[in-house]
């Protein structure tokens, strides 16, 4: 939240023991789901876990500079990583939920494109403001050359700063992050919606059309809840700021994939057991 704030001492490595414990928890939850619920429920849980991993992985692509970015002191978008990813992912979820009746593949891709479009426009407007509002060209502080365009970066960095704006690699990272976030959120929503649509009429003894609002709300709320949990975990992993896929912090993503899988599994099994038990 500040330019002078001390960063917490989060190491970059993967703690093998903890990762193994995490995988064991994951397997136990999957086993429990198989014992307690039907195979449909198990498939839904796997879908939720994949969605959670997509969200967690996607957050690592989103270039966020936090408070220093608002002062042109660091590259990236000037806001919080978890909530920016949530903004893009939920905009994707909006599109994906709209296309839900067109089948899983179309809905998930629509959701992903929705999130990517949101990030494409936002990143474009960020560069627009930097260039035309403040007269500052984009420069990365972490790499010497942009890995995509090959543009050299250090000489465009103004004095006393770590870089500013969004170099093209960060722009592409933002769009990819939005696509993963939107697709992951939509996948969770559709998986849960299918489970609820199937189970709720029986549970309430009502017609499918009558309980549809409940199913949509439950699936939508849980998708948002699981999205936020995964986005915040990923934000913890990158300790708040990242420049995009070229940032050294990006290499921390393997441990976040395990973390997202476990967190989504825990939340997912409870969300599914709400109706399946």
């Amino acid at each position: 939240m500040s330019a002078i704030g001390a960063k917490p001492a989060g190491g970059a490595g993967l703690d093998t023991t903890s990762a193994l414990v995490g995988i064991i928890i994951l397997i136990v939850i999957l086993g429990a789901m198989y014992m307690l619920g039907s195979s449909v429920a198990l498939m839904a849980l796997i879908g939720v876990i994949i969605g959670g991993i997509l969200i967690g992985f996607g957050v690592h692509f989103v270039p966020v500079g936090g408070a220093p970015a608002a002062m042109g002191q660091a590259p990236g978008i000037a806001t919080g990583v978890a909530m920016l990813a949530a903004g893009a992912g939920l905009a994707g979820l909006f599109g994906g939920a709209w296309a839900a009746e067109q089948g899983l593949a179309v809905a998930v891709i629509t959701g992903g494109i929705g999130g990517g479009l949101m990030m494409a426009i936002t990143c474009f407007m960020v560069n627009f403001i930097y260039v035309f509002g403040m007269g500052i060209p984009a420069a990365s502080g972490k790499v010497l050359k942009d890995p995509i365009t090959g543009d050299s970066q250090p000489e465009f960095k103004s004095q006393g700063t770590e870089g500013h704006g969004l170099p093209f690699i960060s722009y592409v990272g933002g769009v990819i992050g939005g696509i993963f976030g939107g697709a992951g959120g939509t996948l969770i929503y559709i998986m849960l919606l299918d489970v609820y649509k199937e189970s709720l009429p029986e549970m309430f003894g009502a017609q499918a059309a009558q309980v549809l609002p409940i199913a949509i709300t439950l699936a939508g709320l849980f998708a948002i809840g699981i999205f936020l949990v995964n986005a915040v975990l990923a934000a913890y992993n990158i300790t708040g700021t990242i420049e995009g896929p070229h940032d050294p912090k990006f290499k921390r993503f393997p441990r976040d994939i395990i973390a997202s899988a476990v967190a989504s599994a825990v939340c997912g099994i409870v969300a599914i057991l709400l109706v399946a038990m």
Partner: protein
Amino acid sequence: MSVKIEVIEGGMPHTNIMIGGLVVSVICIYLTYLNVLTGTQLFAFFGGLGAIAAIVWGSHTIKHLCSYGIGTGVPSAGMMAFGSGLIAMLFATRYGVAAPIVAIILAAVIGAILGYVANNILSMHIPVMIQSLVEMAVIGALTLMGFAAMMTGSFELSSMTVGQVTILGLSLPSYQASLLGGALLATVFMLGGIAIQHPFNACLGPNWTQDRMLMLAAECGFLSMIPAAVMSMALVSMPAALISLIVSLVGWYYTYANYIVLSKRDAAEWLDAKPIPELEGH
């Protein structure tokens, strides 16, 4: 954080606030069960009071956690709390009278796993991480359950999913016009999520004082209760909603006035239309 805050400085110890918040919150949520026993909805406002107790406790837990510097903003902790608490709370509503207890246990389990994930797999190594996330999930679940009980008159799933629609003078049950069917829980989610993180976010700084932050937490709770009471007009009987509204307005006024008094006590100066004071050396 711009300012490094000492871990805990004076005031009530965190354990006392935690136990107090938990007990008061559970008792208040259970008091809404008087609705079922007496066959009215007039006791719904106790749910809101239970949620406020949980918010006061939660603001202190956030202070406890964020004083270690978690690398991202304070609000994210509130979002995490409610994301995990929401799932536990909705699952628990299936268990009728036992719902608050089930919610606490389930939220604690989810919070413990999330805490382990954050602390060990993500290598954050913050001493209070697991305990804080357990508390946050429980707080999230209790706050949501409290407000849900206040807005529907009961903490059971059936009352949250079935509402009444009046068409041409006929009152019909409807799944759409309910707390869940209308997704009012999304509003409650954000109300609680902001109320829980705001007290610490607003009061952080070198002159942080515990009583001022807790008073602000109570103020945020009552403030959140006002729109919850207004929204409950669509779901519970009008007298019950009005009682909730009056309780929340009175409580809000009292806590807001007290918060201003405490801010006046702690502020360097309290000026009205005065220029920037001249400090030596500048």
